[in-house]
């Protein structure tokens, strides 16, 4: 089915593309050529390292505020972070430039600032939806508040942290091209994309987009598989008696 749909898409694309929009064959050729270049590898590596670094920091910050959100003082902070989703990065570049040392730090902090509100929103939703019986079971087993927090939220929701990570990787991957466009000194696929766009090289732009899309899918699959491997219960269906 998917193969058929893909085939139809390519046919439609091929028949509707004119002089401005490159034909699928040209994009495929550019894609193949792009894969063999060192420039792509270098830029891809820069982007991947930056994304992973930003993800790591974002997870630490998110988990801290999400776990502590059960304490009233931190609850309001977590709620404020959630609202920060509505802040645009573009309007904050100057402030972040003043606060950071170099382009690398600027990109990393912008990316973290962009990701954390989305991570926090998803994780707070998980915490809010925790079944009351999970807490009650802990209480009946004689757990104190810290033991309950550890069992229900930290251990019990670890698989969902992974799921949030998987879902929000798409946001990080989307933001990377934007952030790299703001500071192009160190390269990255974002700056490469802007370069191709600047010279109106649409064939390479689409080929690079295709690559970005495929890498995104690979990470999605990898994180999904790792989640099921680490937390087998996340993949279980209710057994029928």
């Amino acid at each position, binding site marked *: 089915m998917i193969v058929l749909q893909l085939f139809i898409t390519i046919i439609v694309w091929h028949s509707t593309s004119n002089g401005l929009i490159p034909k699928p064959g040209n994009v495929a050729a550019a894609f193949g050529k792009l894969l063999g270049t060192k420039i792509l590898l270098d830029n891809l590596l820069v982007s991947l390292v930056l994304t992973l670094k930003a993800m790591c920091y974002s997870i630490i910050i998110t988990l801290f505020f999400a776990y502590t959100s059960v304490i009233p003082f931190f609850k309001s902070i977590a709620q404020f972070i959630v609202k920060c989703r509505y802040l645009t990065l573009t309007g904050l570049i100057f402030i972040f430039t003043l606060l950071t040392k170099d382009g690398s730090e600027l990109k990393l902090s912008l990316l973290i600032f962009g990701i954390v509100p989305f991570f926090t929103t998803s994780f707070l939703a998980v915490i809010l939806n925790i079944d009351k019986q999970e807490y009650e079971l802990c209480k009946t087993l004689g757990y104190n508040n810290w033991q309950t927090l550890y*069992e229900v939220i930290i251990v019990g929701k670890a698989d969902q942290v992974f799921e949030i990570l998987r879902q929000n990787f798409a946001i990080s991957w989307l933001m990377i091209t934007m952030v790299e466009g703001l500071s192009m000194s160190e390269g990255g696929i974002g700056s490469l994309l802007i370069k191709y766009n600047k010279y109106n090289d649409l064939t390479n732009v689409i080929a690079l987009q295709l690559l970005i899309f495929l890498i995104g899918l690979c990470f999605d699959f990898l994180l999904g598989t790792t989640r099921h491997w680490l937390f087998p219960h996340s993949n279980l269906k209710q057994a029928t008696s």
Partner: protein
Amino acid sequence: MTAYIKDKILLQASNIRLAYDNNIILRDINFCIRDIKRPGMQQGQVISLIGRSGIGKTQLFKILSGLQQPTAGEVIIHDNKTVKPGDMGVIFQNYYLFEWRTVFQSLLLAAKKNTQLKGKEEAMINHYANEFQLTDELKKYPQQLSGGQRQRASIIQQLLKGSDFLLLDEPFSGLDVCVLDKVTELLLQVSVSDELKTLIIVSHDISTSVAISDTVLILGNEQGKEGATIKKEIDLVDRDLAWQKNIKKEKAFLETVEEIKACL
């Protein structure tokens, strides 16, 4: 009549009242559970708390387990201790277990909370698993268990925790006839496992719960008064209806069931 004596008080509920704003749910709840002693054997206590749906059984259940604070009154156990969460073993209606833990891991967590089992946690888990026919399920997650298996795992979990009191919320709901017999057999087995073991069954299945109980508490409303209370306490031992197999066929039993129904 079976020889027995009612000894010291194990649980005392005094003047319990529960209200939300001006809406009274429970009022003047007073009852006590005593240690029943039978010569030559270990006999625990089985108390049924019966009432119509929505009357406040679950609220009383939560108060008895310490999970909910009453507006007034208190539940005292072990002579002078006010009940708090963790003092009672609680088996919820849907036999809730940690979905992220295997059965073995869940049981181990409970066993580690029982200081008397220190060093022999795994041996006790295996013992109970064998007794409750759950050995093959120890490595499974709750999602892989049937309703009956989940229930047994929940019971073992609370037994391992070592509380004298076991509160069961609607243990017979949604069970088919074959499983129902097994569950009642299981509860009787638990009730005779220790002299102080006390089962409080909250149910609206009158016949099944009365058949395994020694005392019935009927929760209901009194005319002209807001909020449910214990309308009647029936001593089944006194009526010679306790601890008998096939009691459901006895005329006196059927009359008692009718008496309870009329009281609801």
